[in-house]
Protein backbone atom coordinates (compact mmCIF):
# COMPACT_ATOMS: atom_id res chain seq x y z
CA UNK A 1 0.00 0.00 0.00
CA UNK A 2 1.24 3.50 -0.69
CA UNK A 3 2.14 6.02 1.91
CA UNK A 4 -1.02 8.01 1.34
CA UNK A 5 -3.22 5.02 1.92
CA UNK A 6 -1.37 4.23 5.13
CA UNK A 7 -2.09 7.73 6.40
CA UNK A 8 -5.76 7.52 5.53
CA UNK A 9 -6.09 4.19 7.25
CA UNK A 10 -4.24 5.42 10.28
CA UNK A 11 -6.33 8.59 10.51
CA UNK A 12 -9.46 6.52 10.35
CA UNK A 13 -8.06 4.25 13.02
CA UNK A 14 -7.38 7.17 15.36
CA UNK A 15 -10.87 8.51 14.86
CA UNK A 16 -12.58 5.19 15.37
CA UNK A 17 -10.73 4.31 18.55
CA UNK A 18 -13.45 5.49 20.88
CA UNK A 19 -14.72 3.85 24.02
CA UNK A 20 -17.01 1.56 22.06
CA UNK A 21 -14.79 1.18 19.05
CA UNK A 22 -14.87 -1.93 16.95
CA UNK A 23 -11.27 -2.64 17.83
CA UNK A 24 -8.93 -4.93 16.02
CA UNK A 25 -9.01 -8.48 17.25
CA UNK A 26 -5.48 -9.67 17.79
CA UNK A 27 -4.48 -13.24 17.51
CA UNK A 28 -1.49 -13.77 19.68
CA UNK A 29 0.69 -16.44 18.19
CA UNK A 30 3.23 -16.11 20.94
CA UNK A 31 2.19 -16.66 24.52
CA UNK A 32 4.74 -16.50 27.27
CA UNK A 33 3.80 -18.94 29.94
CA UNK A 34 6.30 -19.32 32.73
CA UNK A 35 5.54 -22.05 35.21
CA UNK A 36 7.38 -21.69 38.47
CA UNK A 37 10.07 -24.20 39.29
CA UNK A 38 8.91 -24.68 42.82
CA UNK A 39 5.43 -25.87 41.99
CA UNK A 40 5.16 -28.05 45.04
CA UNK A 41 4.31 -25.80 47.92
CA UNK A 42 5.07 -26.86 51.41
CA UNK A 43 1.94 -27.67 53.30
CA UNK A 44 2.19 -25.92 56.62
CA UNK A 45 1.33 -28.23 59.41
CA UNK A 46 -1.60 -26.98 61.42
CA UNK A 47 -0.67 -25.96 64.91
CA UNK A 48 -0.74 -29.05 67.03
CA UNK A 49 0.13 -27.50 70.35
CA UNK A 50 -1.49 -28.50 73.60
CA UNK A 51 -5.15 -27.64 73.91
CA UNK A 52 -4.48 -24.56 75.91
CA UNK A 53 -1.61 -23.32 73.85
CA UNK A 54 -1.85 -20.83 70.97
CA UNK A 55 0.93 -20.94 68.42
CA UNK A 56 1.88 -17.80 66.52
CA UNK A 57 1.49 -17.79 62.75
CA UNK A 58 4.93 -17.12 61.31
CA UNK A 59 5.51 -15.07 58.21
CA UNK A 60 8.84 -15.54 56.44
CA UNK A 61 10.25 -12.43 54.76
CA UNK A 62 11.27 -12.40 51.11
CA UNK A 63 13.46 -9.48 50.05
CA UNK A 64 13.75 -8.61 46.36
CA UNK A 65 15.74 -5.45 46.81
CA UNK A 66 18.97 -5.73 44.85
CA UNK A 67 21.54 -3.25 43.61
CA UNK A 68 21.49 -4.45 40.03
CA UNK A 69 21.24 -1.60 37.57
CA UNK A 70 19.01 -1.93 34.58
CA UNK A 71 21.08 -2.56 31.46
CA UNK A 72 21.43 0.52 29.29
CA UNK A 73 19.64 0.10 26.01
CA UNK A 74 20.27 2.05 22.87
CA UNK A 75 17.16 4.03 22.05
CA UNK A 76 16.23 5.12 18.56
CA UNK A 77 17.17 8.70 17.97
CA UNK A 78 14.76 11.49 17.11
CA UNK A 79 11.64 9.86 18.55
CA UNK A 80 9.61 10.98 21.53
CA UNK A 81 9.32 8.18 24.02
CA UNK A 82 5.92 8.99 25.43
CA UNK A 83 2.38 9.79 24.26
CA UNK A 84 -0.45 11.17 26.43
CA UNK A 85 -4.18 10.66 27.00
CA UNK A 86 -7.26 12.48 28.24
CA UNK A 87 -9.07 11.48 31.45
CA UNK A 88 -10.79 8.05 31.21
CA UNK A 89 -9.67 7.84 27.59
CA UNK A 90 -7.56 5.45 25.58
CA UNK A 91 -7.96 7.31 22.32
CA UNK A 92 -4.72 8.32 20.65
CA UNK A 93 -4.37 12.06 20.21
CA UNK A 94 -3.86 13.53 16.75
CA UNK A 95 -0.72 15.32 17.90
CA UNK A 96 0.90 12.00 18.84
CA UNK A 97 0.54 10.52 15.40
CA UNK A 98 3.99 11.64 14.26
CA UNK A 99 5.63 10.01 17.26
CA UNK A 100 3.94 6.71 16.57
CA UNK A 101 4.90 6.80 12.93
CA UNK A 102 8.52 7.47 13.85
CA UNK A 103 8.60 4.41 16.08
CA UNK A 104 6.91 2.31 13.44
CA UNK A 105 9.65 3.29 10.99
CA UNK A 106 12.38 2.36 13.48
CA UNK A 107 10.85 -1.01 14.21
CA UNK A 108 10.23 -1.84 10.58
CA UNK A 109 13.79 -0.96 9.71
CA UNK A 110 15.21 -3.00 12.56
CA UNK A 111 13.35 -6.29 12.80
CA UNK A 112 15.47 -7.38 15.75
CA UNK A 113 14.38 -4.49 17.95
CA UNK A 114 11.83 -5.33 20.59
CA UNK A 115 9.59 -2.75 22.14
CA UNK A 116 7.57 -2.84 25.32
CA UNK A 117 4.74 -0.34 25.51
CA UNK A 118 3.97 0.62 29.09
CA UNK A 119 0.52 2.01 29.75
CA UNK A 120 -0.05 4.31 32.72
CA UNK A 121 -2.87 6.24 34.37
CA UNK A 122 -3.22 9.03 36.88
CA UNK A 123 -3.87 8.03 40.49
CA UNK A 124 -7.60 8.66 40.55
CA UNK A 125 -9.69 5.55 41.07
CA UNK A 126 -9.09 1.87 41.68
CA UNK A 127 -5.76 0.21 41.03
CA UNK A 128 -7.01 -2.77 39.05
CA UNK A 129 -9.35 -0.73 36.89
CA UNK A 130 -6.47 1.65 36.26
CA UNK A 131 -4.28 -1.30 35.35
CA UNK A 132 -6.86 -2.24 32.73
CA UNK A 133 -7.16 1.35 31.51
CA UNK A 134 -3.39 1.59 31.19
CA UNK A 135 -3.53 -1.68 29.25
CA UNK A 136 -6.10 -0.18 26.87
CA UNK A 137 -3.77 2.73 26.26
CA UNK A 138 -0.77 0.51 25.59
CA UNK A 139 -2.91 -1.69 23.34
CA UNK A 140 -4.08 1.35 21.38
CA UNK A 141 -0.50 2.28 20.60
CA UNK A 142 0.32 -1.30 19.71
CA UNK A 143 -2.59 -1.55 17.32
CA UNK A 144 -1.54 1.69 15.67
CA UNK A 145 1.98 0.33 15.20
CA UNK A 146 0.64 -2.90 13.73
CA UNK A 147 -1.50 -0.98 11.30
CA UNK A 148 1.70 0.72 10.21
CA UNK A 149 3.19 -2.65 9.44
CA UNK A 150 5.16 -3.46 12.57
CA UNK A 151 5.14 -7.18 13.21
CA UNK A 152 3.43 -8.72 16.20
CA UNK A 153 6.53 -10.35 17.60
CA UNK A 154 8.31 -7.03 18.07
CA UNK A 155 5.81 -5.48 20.45
CA UNK A 156 4.49 -6.31 23.87
CA UNK A 157 2.00 -4.07 25.62
CA UNK A 158 1.83 -4.03 29.41
CA UNK A 159 0.33 -1.82 32.03
CA UNK A 160 1.57 -0.23 35.21
CA UNK A 161 -1.78 1.35 35.99
CA UNK A 162 -1.26 4.12 38.52
CA UNK A 163 1.77 2.51 40.14
CA UNK A 164 4.57 4.41 38.39
CA UNK A 165 3.61 8.07 38.12
CA UNK A 166 5.89 10.35 36.16
CA UNK A 167 4.76 13.31 38.19
CA UNK A 168 4.05 13.22 41.88
CA UNK A 169 1.46 15.46 43.45
CA UNK A 170 -2.20 16.18 43.16
CA UNK A 171 -3.97 18.30 40.64
CA UNK A 172 -4.70 18.07 36.96
CA UNK A 173 -1.22 19.17 35.89
CA UNK A 174 0.35 16.12 37.51
CA UNK A 175 -2.51 13.84 36.53
CA UNK A 176 -2.19 14.80 32.86
CA UNK A 177 1.50 13.90 32.81
CA UNK A 178 0.73 10.48 34.24
CA UNK A 179 -1.89 9.46 31.68
CA UNK A 180 0.60 8.12 29.16
CA UNK A 181 2.19 5.27 27.26
CA UNK A 182 5.97 4.98 27.36
CA UNK A 183 8.12 3.33 24.70
CA UNK A 184 10.70 1.02 26.28
CA UNK A 185 13.13 -0.62 23.89
CA UNK A 186 14.59 -3.90 25.08
CA UNK A 187 18.18 -5.06 25.02
CA UNK A 188 19.89 -7.06 22.23
Amino acid sequence: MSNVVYRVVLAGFFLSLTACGSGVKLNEAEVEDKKGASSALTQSNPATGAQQESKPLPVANVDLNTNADAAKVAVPAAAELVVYFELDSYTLRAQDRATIEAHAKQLSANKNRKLVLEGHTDEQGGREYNLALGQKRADAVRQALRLLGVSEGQIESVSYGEEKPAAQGQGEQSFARNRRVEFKYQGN
Partner: protein
Amino acid sequence: MRRRNFLAAAGALAMTEAGAQFRIEVSGVGLTRIPIAVFAWKGEEALTGRISAVVRADLERSGQFKMIETDAAVLDETSTIDAQKWRQRQADALLVGSVTRLSDGRMDVRARLWDVVSGMDRGGQNMVVGPGQLRLAAHKIADDVYQKLTGVRGVFSTRIAYVSRTSGRHQLWVADADGENAQSALSSPEPIISPNWSPNGQQLAYVSFEAKKPVIYAHDLATGRRRMIASFKGSNSAPAWSPDGRRMAMTLSRDGGSQIFVMDLQTMDVRRLTDSNHIETEPVFSADGLQIYFVSDRGGSPQIYRMPVGGGSAQRVTFQTAYSISPAISPDGKWLAYIARVQGQFRLHVQDLASGMVQSLTETKADESPSFAPNSKLIVYATQHEGAEALMTTTIDGQTKTRLAGQRGDIREPEWGPFLVGV
Protein backbone atom coordinates in the same frame (compact mmCIF):
# COMPACT_ATOMS: atom_id res chain seq x y z
CA MET B 1 -32.08 7.98 52.00
CA ARG B 2 -30.03 10.41 53.99
CA ARG B 3 -28.31 8.86 56.93
CA ARG B 4 -28.49 10.91 60.09
CA ASN B 5 -25.12 11.67 61.51
CA PHE B 6 -24.64 12.03 65.21
CA LEU B 7 -21.49 13.51 66.54
CA ALA B 8 -19.84 11.08 68.88
CA ALA B 9 -19.80 11.87 72.56
CA ALA B 10 -16.76 9.68 72.88
CA GLY B 11 -14.77 11.54 70.24
CA ALA B 12 -11.34 10.26 69.49
CA LEU B 13 -9.52 8.10 72.00
CA ALA B 14 -5.81 7.72 71.50
CA MET B 15 -4.23 4.72 73.17
CA THR B 16 -0.65 3.72 73.45
CA GLU B 17 0.13 0.03 73.55
CA ALA B 18 3.62 -1.28 73.98
CA GLY B 19 5.17 1.39 71.77
CA ALA B 20 2.64 1.08 68.99
CA GLN B 21 -0.16 3.59 68.55
CA PHE B 22 -3.65 3.15 67.37
CA ARG B 23 -6.57 5.51 67.40
CA ILE B 24 -10.23 4.74 67.61
CA GLU B 25 -12.61 7.22 66.15
CA VAL B 26 -16.16 6.28 66.78
CA SER B 27 -18.59 8.37 64.80
CA GLY B 28 -22.29 7.88 64.91
CA VAL B 29 -24.40 6.18 67.50
CA GLY B 30 -25.18 2.55 66.87
CA LEU B 31 -28.63 1.19 67.36
CA THR B 32 -27.87 -1.89 69.37
CA ARG B 33 -24.73 -1.77 71.41
CA ILE B 34 -24.35 -4.17 74.27
CA PRO B 35 -23.09 -2.32 77.34
CA ILE B 36 -20.20 -4.21 78.89
CA ALA B 37 -17.78 -3.43 81.67
CA VAL B 38 -14.33 -4.83 80.86
CA PHE B 39 -12.13 -4.84 83.91
CA ALA B 40 -8.37 -4.62 83.94
CA TRP B 41 -6.88 -8.11 84.05
CA LYS B 42 -5.48 -8.79 87.45
CA GLY B 43 -1.72 -8.79 86.95
CA GLU B 44 -1.69 -6.85 83.70
CA GLU B 45 -0.29 -3.69 85.19
CA ALA B 46 3.04 -5.48 85.47
CA LEU B 47 3.10 -6.20 81.74
CA THR B 48 4.03 -4.03 78.81
CA GLY B 49 0.72 -4.71 77.10
CA ARG B 50 -2.74 -4.41 78.59
CA ILE B 51 -5.06 -7.23 77.74
CA SER B 52 -8.07 -5.21 78.76
CA ALA B 53 -7.19 -2.39 76.36
CA VAL B 54 -6.93 -4.79 73.44
CA VAL B 55 -10.24 -6.45 74.33
CA ARG B 56 -12.00 -3.11 74.72
CA ALA B 57 -10.63 -1.87 71.40
CA ASP B 58 -11.76 -5.05 69.64
CA LEU B 59 -15.27 -4.89 71.04
CA GLU B 60 -15.61 -1.19 70.27
CA ARG B 61 -14.34 -1.62 66.72
CA SER B 62 -17.13 -4.13 66.10
CA GLY B 63 -19.65 -1.34 66.64
CA GLN B 64 -21.76 -3.71 68.72
CA PHE B 65 -20.51 -2.91 72.20
CA LYS B 66 -20.43 0.12 74.42
CA MET B 67 -17.88 0.29 77.19
CA ILE B 68 -19.14 0.88 80.71
CA GLU B 69 -16.64 2.41 83.09
CA THR B 70 -15.21 0.06 85.63
CA ASP B 71 -14.25 1.03 89.14
CA ALA B 72 -11.12 0.52 91.18
CA ALA B 73 -12.08 -2.94 92.42
CA VAL B 74 -9.54 -5.60 91.65
CA LEU B 75 -11.45 -8.55 90.24
CA ASP B 76 -10.48 -11.70 88.49
CA GLU B 77 -12.11 -14.82 87.12
CA THR B 78 -12.65 -16.24 90.60
CA SER B 79 -14.40 -13.20 92.04
CA THR B 80 -18.08 -13.07 92.93
CA ILE B 81 -19.85 -10.30 91.12
CA ASP B 82 -22.30 -7.78 92.53
CA ALA B 83 -24.73 -8.04 89.64
CA GLN B 84 -27.15 -5.52 91.11
CA LYS B 85 -24.50 -2.84 91.31
CA TRP B 86 -23.64 -3.34 87.65
CA ARG B 87 -27.25 -3.43 86.56
CA GLN B 88 -27.58 -0.05 88.17
CA ARG B 89 -24.61 1.11 86.15
CA GLN B 90 -26.42 0.03 82.99
CA ALA B 91 -24.11 -2.84 82.15
CA ASP B 92 -25.51 -5.98 80.54
CA ALA B 93 -22.25 -7.89 80.85
CA LEU B 94 -19.05 -7.89 82.81
CA LEU B 95 -15.67 -9.32 81.85
CA VAL B 96 -12.89 -10.06 84.34
CA GLY B 97 -9.70 -12.04 84.29
CA SER B 98 -6.14 -12.51 85.41
CA VAL B 99 -2.73 -13.00 83.86
CA THR B 100 0.14 -14.76 85.60
CA ARG B 101 3.68 -15.39 84.49
CA LEU B 102 4.63 -19.05 84.85
CA SER B 103 8.04 -20.23 85.94
CA ASP B 104 9.04 -21.01 82.35
CA GLY B 105 8.18 -17.50 81.16
CA ARG B 106 4.87 -18.34 79.51
CA MET B 107 1.72 -16.47 80.47
CA ASP B 108 -1.35 -18.05 82.02
CA VAL B 109 -4.32 -15.96 80.88
CA ARG B 110 -7.80 -16.45 82.27
CA ALA B 111 -11.13 -14.72 81.84
CA ARG B 112 -14.75 -14.99 82.88
CA LEU B 113 -17.80 -13.40 81.33
CA TRP B 114 -20.80 -12.53 83.49
CA ASP B 115 -24.36 -11.86 82.36
CA VAL B 116 -25.25 -8.97 84.62
CA VAL B 117 -28.96 -9.04 83.85
CA SER B 118 -29.44 -12.63 85.02
CA GLY B 119 -26.45 -12.75 87.32
CA MET B 120 -25.27 -15.87 85.53
CA ASP B 121 -21.76 -16.95 84.75
CA ARG B 122 -21.37 -17.20 80.96
CA GLY B 123 -18.23 -19.25 81.20
CA GLY B 124 -14.54 -18.66 81.17
CA GLN B 125 -11.45 -18.87 79.05
CA ASN B 126 -8.20 -20.42 80.04
CA MET B 127 -5.06 -20.33 77.94
CA VAL B 128 -1.29 -20.47 78.19
CA VAL B 129 0.63 -18.41 75.66
CA GLY B 130 4.21 -17.38 74.99
CA PRO B 131 5.22 -14.05 76.46
CA GLY B 132 4.97 -12.36 73.06
CA GLN B 133 1.42 -13.50 72.44
CA LEU B 134 -0.65 -11.60 74.92
CA ARG B 135 -2.36 -9.71 72.12
CA LEU B 136 -3.41 -12.99 70.56
CA ALA B 137 -4.79 -14.14 73.92
CA ALA B 138 -6.73 -10.90 74.23
CA HIS B 139 -8.16 -11.29 70.71
CA LYS B 140 -9.31 -14.82 71.46
CA ILE B 141 -11.02 -13.65 74.62
CA ALA B 142 -12.70 -10.86 72.69
CA ASP B 143 -13.84 -13.41 70.08
CA ASP B 144 -15.33 -15.57 72.81
CA VAL B 145 -17.20 -12.65 74.38
CA TYR B 146 -18.42 -11.50 70.98
CA GLN B 147 -19.72 -14.92 70.06
CA LYS B 148 -21.44 -15.49 73.38
CA LEU B 149 -23.20 -12.15 73.36
CA THR B 150 -24.03 -11.69 69.66
CA GLY B 151 -24.27 -15.27 68.46
CA VAL B 152 -21.86 -14.48 65.64
CA ARG B 153 -18.27 -15.68 65.35
CA GLY B 154 -15.74 -12.96 66.18
CA VAL B 155 -12.99 -11.88 63.79
CA PHE B 156 -10.53 -10.39 66.25
CA SER B 157 -8.06 -13.28 65.88
CA THR B 158 -8.02 -13.09 62.11
CA ARG B 159 -5.40 -11.37 59.99
CA ILE B 160 -5.29 -8.80 57.27
CA ALA B 161 -2.81 -8.32 54.47
CA TYR B 162 -1.89 -4.93 53.06
CA VAL B 163 0.80 -3.15 51.09
CA SER B 164 2.94 -0.20 52.09
CA ARG B 165 5.14 2.10 50.09
CA THR B 166 7.87 4.09 51.79
CA SER B 167 10.55 5.97 49.88
CA GLY B 168 10.22 3.82 46.82
CA ARG B 169 10.27 0.55 48.74
CA HIS B 170 7.20 -1.65 48.59
CA GLN B 171 6.25 -4.19 51.23
CA LEU B 172 3.51 -6.74 51.63
CA TRP B 173 2.44 -7.08 55.26
CA VAL B 174 0.41 -9.57 57.26
CA ALA B 175 -1.00 -8.09 60.45
CA ASP B 176 -3.58 -8.82 63.12
CA ALA B 177 -7.09 -7.68 62.27
CA ASP B 178 -6.52 -4.52 64.31
CA GLY B 179 -3.50 -3.60 62.21
CA GLU B 180 -0.96 -4.43 64.91
CA ASN B 181 1.84 -6.99 64.88
CA ALA B 182 2.57 -6.56 61.20
CA GLN B 183 5.10 -8.96 59.71
CA SER B 184 6.68 -8.35 56.34
CA ALA B 185 6.07 -11.11 53.82
CA LEU B 186 7.70 -9.46 50.83
CA SER B 187 9.95 -6.49 50.26
CA SER B 188 10.47 -5.20 46.72
CA PRO B 189 11.78 -2.22 44.81
CA GLU B 190 8.80 -2.50 42.46
CA PRO B 191 5.08 -2.18 43.22
CA ILE B 192 2.95 -4.93 44.73
CA ILE B 193 -0.83 -4.79 44.38
CA SER B 194 -4.00 -6.86 44.81
CA PRO B 195 -3.17 -9.28 47.62
CA ASN B 196 -5.72 -12.09 47.83
CA TRP B 197 -5.91 -14.78 50.52
CA SER B 198 -6.14 -18.49 49.82
CA PRO B 199 -9.21 -19.97 51.53
CA ASN B 200 -7.06 -21.74 54.14
CA GLY B 201 -5.22 -18.56 55.06
CA GLN B 202 -1.79 -20.03 54.33
CA GLN B 203 -1.02 -18.27 51.08
CA LEU B 204 -1.37 -14.88 49.51
CA ALA B 205 -1.69 -14.32 45.81
CA TYR B 206 -0.63 -10.90 44.59
CA VAL B 207 0.57 -8.95 41.59
CA SER B 208 4.24 -8.02 41.55
CA PHE B 209 5.97 -5.68 39.12
CA GLU B 210 9.46 -7.01 39.88
CA ALA B 211 9.77 -8.29 36.29
CA LYS B 212 8.87 -4.80 34.99
CA LYS B 213 5.35 -5.89 34.17
CA PRO B 214 2.48 -7.22 36.27
CA VAL B 215 2.83 -10.92 37.15
CA ILE B 216 0.74 -13.01 39.56
CA TYR B 217 2.44 -14.99 42.33
CA ALA B 218 1.15 -17.34 45.03
CA HIS B 219 3.18 -16.96 48.19
CA ASP B 220 3.30 -19.39 51.09
CA LEU B 221 3.50 -17.21 54.19
CA ALA B 222 5.18 -19.57 56.61
CA THR B 223 8.02 -20.53 54.28
CA GLY B 224 8.30 -17.56 51.94
CA ARG B 225 8.19 -19.92 48.94
CA ARG B 226 6.58 -18.36 45.91
CA ARG B 227 5.06 -19.93 42.85
CA MET B 228 4.67 -17.90 39.67
CA ILE B 229 1.03 -18.36 38.74
CA ALA B 230 0.59 -16.21 35.64
CA SER B 231 3.23 -14.51 33.55
CA PHE B 232 1.61 -14.52 30.15
CA LYS B 233 2.37 -11.97 27.49
CA GLY B 234 0.97 -8.61 28.49
CA SER B 235 -0.41 -7.93 31.94
CA ASN B 236 -1.47 -10.47 34.56
CA SER B 237 -3.48 -9.15 37.51
CA ALA B 238 -6.50 -9.22 39.84
CA PRO B 239 -5.99 -12.71 41.29
CA ALA B 240 -9.04 -14.14 43.10
CA TRP B 241 -8.94 -17.54 44.74
CA SER B 242 -12.05 -19.70 44.46
CA PRO B 243 -13.68 -20.69 47.78
CA ASP B 244 -12.60 -24.31 47.30
CA GLY B 245 -9.01 -23.27 46.70
CA ARG B 246 -8.74 -25.16 43.41
CA ARG B 247 -9.11 -22.31 40.95
CA MET B 248 -8.06 -18.72 40.59
CA ALA B 249 -9.83 -16.06 38.57
CA MET B 250 -7.62 -13.39 37.05
CA THR B 251 -7.36 -10.64 34.49
CA LEU B 252 -5.04 -11.35 31.56
CA SER B 253 -4.31 -9.19 28.55
CA ARG B 254 -2.52 -11.93 26.64
CA ASP B 255 -5.21 -12.17 23.97
CA GLY B 256 -5.41 -8.41 23.58
CA GLY B 257 -7.31 -6.28 26.08
CA SER B 258 -8.03 -7.07 29.73
CA GLN B 259 -10.26 -10.12 29.95
CA ILE B 260 -11.27 -12.52 32.70
CA PHE B 261 -9.87 -16.02 32.89
CA VAL B 262 -10.14 -18.85 35.38
CA MET B 263 -7.09 -21.01 36.02
CA ASP B 264 -7.15 -24.56 37.30
CA LEU B 265 -4.39 -24.45 39.92
CA GLN B 266 -3.51 -28.11 39.50
CA THR B 267 -3.02 -28.08 35.73
CA MET B 268 -2.31 -24.34 35.35
CA ASP B 269 -4.66 -24.33 32.36
CA VAL B 270 -6.64 -21.17 31.84
CA ARG B 271 -10.14 -20.86 30.49
CA ARG B 272 -11.36 -17.55 29.16
CA LEU B 273 -14.67 -16.33 30.57
CA THR B 274 -15.21 -13.01 28.80
CA ASP B 275 -14.80 -12.16 25.16
CA SER B 276 -15.22 -8.51 24.38
CA ASN B 277 -13.45 -5.40 23.26
CA HIS B 278 -14.14 -3.79 26.58
CA ILE B 279 -12.36 -3.70 29.91
CA GLU B 280 -13.26 -6.81 31.94
CA THR B 281 -11.50 -7.05 35.28
CA GLU B 282 -11.62 -7.41 39.08
CA PRO B 283 -13.20 -10.87 39.19
CA VAL B 284 -14.34 -12.19 42.58
CA PHE B 285 -16.05 -15.50 43.30
CA SER B 286 -19.41 -15.62 45.05
CA ALA B 287 -19.31 -17.37 48.42
CA ASP B 288 -20.77 -20.55 46.93
CA GLY B 289 -18.16 -20.55 44.20
CA LEU B 290 -20.75 -20.67 41.42
CA GLN B 291 -20.71 -17.09 40.19
CA ILE B 292 -18.10 -14.53 39.39
CA TYR B 293 -18.73 -10.86 40.01
CA PHE B 294 -16.60 -8.54 37.92
CA VAL B 295 -16.18 -5.04 36.54
CA SER B 296 -16.94 -4.27 32.91
CA ASP B 297 -17.22 -1.05 30.98
CA ARG B 298 -19.30 -2.65 28.21
CA GLY B 299 -22.09 -0.22 29.11
CA GLY B 300 -19.88 2.82 28.60
CA SER B 301 -18.59 3.26 32.13
CA PRO B 302 -17.43 0.62 34.62
CA GLN B 303 -20.19 -1.30 36.37
CA ILE B 304 -20.33 -4.55 38.29
CA TYR B 305 -21.73 -7.66 36.64
CA ARG B 306 -22.21 -11.30 37.60
CA MET B 307 -21.89 -14.42 35.50
CA PRO B 308 -21.85 -18.17 36.11
CA VAL B 309 -18.37 -19.61 36.53
CA GLY B 310 -19.10 -22.25 33.94
CA GLY B 311 -19.79 -19.61 31.35
CA GLY B 312 -22.93 -17.91 30.22
CA SER B 313 -24.31 -14.44 29.93
CA ALA B 314 -23.53 -11.76 32.46
CA GLN B 315 -26.11 -9.78 34.39
CA ARG B 316 -25.53 -6.27 35.52
CA VAL B 317 -25.68 -5.83 39.29
CA THR B 318 -25.00 -2.13 39.98
CA PHE B 319 -27.51 0.46 38.80
CA GLN B 320 -27.54 3.20 41.41
CA THR B 321 -24.15 4.68 40.66
CA ALA B 322 -22.72 5.80 37.35
CA TYR B 323 -19.21 4.38 37.87
CA SER B 324 -18.80 1.29 40.03
CA ILE B 325 -15.59 -0.68 40.63
CA SER B 326 -13.77 -2.94 43.13
CA PRO B 327 -16.49 -5.41 44.11
CA ALA B 328 -16.28 -7.40 47.34
CA ILE B 329 -18.90 -9.98 48.29
CA SER B 330 -19.67 -10.76 51.93
CA PRO B 331 -19.08 -14.41 52.83
CA ASP B 332 -22.75 -14.78 53.84
CA GLY B 333 -23.69 -13.74 50.33
CA LYS B 334 -25.89 -10.83 51.39
CA TRP B 335 -23.81 -7.77 50.59
CA LEU B 336 -21.83 -6.27 47.77
CA ALA B 337 -19.33 -3.63 48.81
CA TYR B 338 -17.83 -1.50 46.07
CA ILE B 339 -16.35 1.86 45.22
CA ALA B 340 -18.42 4.35 43.27
CA ARG B 341 -17.17 7.54 41.71
CA VAL B 342 -19.67 10.25 42.53
CA GLN B 343 -18.87 13.76 41.32
CA GLY B 344 -15.22 12.93 41.07
CA GLN B 345 -15.01 11.40 44.55
CA PHE B 346 -14.42 7.71 45.15
CA ARG B 347 -16.61 6.43 47.95
CA LEU B 348 -17.35 3.11 49.59
CA HIS B 349 -20.89 1.84 48.98
CA VAL B 350 -22.75 -1.24 50.14
CA GLN B 351 -25.57 -2.87 48.18
CA ASP B 352 -28.09 -5.31 49.62
CA LEU B 353 -27.99 -8.03 46.98
CA ALA B 354 -31.53 -9.16 47.68
CA SER B 355 -33.25 -5.79 47.50
CA GLY B 356 -30.79 -3.84 45.37
CA MET B 357 -30.76 -0.97 47.84
CA VAL B 358 -27.49 0.92 48.06
CA GLN B 359 -26.02 2.96 50.86
CA SER B 360 -23.01 5.23 50.70
CA LEU B 361 -20.89 4.62 53.77
CA THR B 362 -18.29 7.37 53.82
CA GLU B 363 -17.68 11.02 53.27
CA THR B 364 -14.06 10.66 52.28
CA LYS B 365 -13.11 11.01 48.62
CA ALA B 366 -10.40 8.50 47.81
CA ASP B 367 -11.69 5.17 49.12
CA GLU B 368 -10.27 1.97 47.63
CA SER B 369 -10.12 -1.77 47.94
CA PRO B 370 -12.99 -2.85 50.22
CA SER B 371 -12.76 -6.32 51.79
CA PHE B 372 -15.21 -8.09 54.11
CA ALA B 373 -14.35 -9.67 57.44
CA PRO B 374 -15.05 -13.41 57.40
CA ASN B 375 -18.12 -12.95 59.62
CA SER B 376 -19.57 -10.44 57.11
CA LYS B 377 -19.99 -7.80 59.82
CA LEU B 378 -17.12 -5.43 59.04
CA ILE B 379 -15.41 -4.03 55.95
CA VAL B 380 -11.78 -2.95 55.79
CA TYR B 381 -10.85 -0.39 53.14
CA ALA B 382 -8.14 2.07 52.23
CA THR B 383 -8.69 5.79 52.21
CA GLN B 384 -6.95 9.08 52.76
CA HIS B 385 -7.11 10.41 56.25
CA GLU B 386 -5.50 13.65 57.35
CA GLY B 387 -3.30 13.72 54.29
CA ALA B 388 -1.94 10.19 54.46
CA GLU B 389 -3.13 6.85 53.18
CA ALA B 390 -4.74 4.83 55.96
CA LEU B 391 -6.76 1.68 56.52
CA MET B 392 -10.19 1.86 58.11
CA THR B 393 -12.77 -0.65 59.21
CA THR B 394 -16.46 0.11 59.13
CA THR B 395 -19.61 -1.65 60.18
CA ILE B 396 -21.95 -2.49 57.30
CA ASP B 397 -24.21 0.41 58.22
CA GLY B 398 -21.29 2.83 58.28
CA GLN B 399 -21.98 3.86 61.87
CA THR B 400 -18.71 2.79 63.46
CA LYS B 401 -15.47 3.47 61.68
CA THR B 402 -12.03 2.86 63.06
CA ARG B 403 -8.66 3.80 61.72
CA LEU B 404 -6.25 0.90 62.00
CA ALA B 405 -2.69 1.03 63.19
CA GLY B 406 -0.31 0.44 60.35
CA GLN B 407 3.22 0.82 59.15
CA ARG B 408 4.67 4.16 58.27
CA GLY B 409 4.31 5.48 54.80
CA ASP B 410 1.42 5.04 52.46
CA ILE B 411 -0.61 1.93 53.22
CA ARG B 412 -3.16 0.47 50.89
CA GLU B 413 -4.70 -2.65 49.34
CA PRO B 414 -6.10 -4.26 52.50
CA GLU B 415 -7.49 -7.76 52.25
CA TRP B 416 -9.16 -9.50 55.18
CA GLY B 417 -8.01 -13.07 55.78
CA PRO B 418 -10.26 -16.05 56.54
CA PHE B 419 -11.13 -17.72 59.82
CA LEU B 420 -8.21 -19.98 60.64
CA VAL B 421 -8.39 -23.62 61.60
CA GLY B 422 -6.42 -24.80 64.60
CA VAL B 423 -5.53 -21.35 65.95
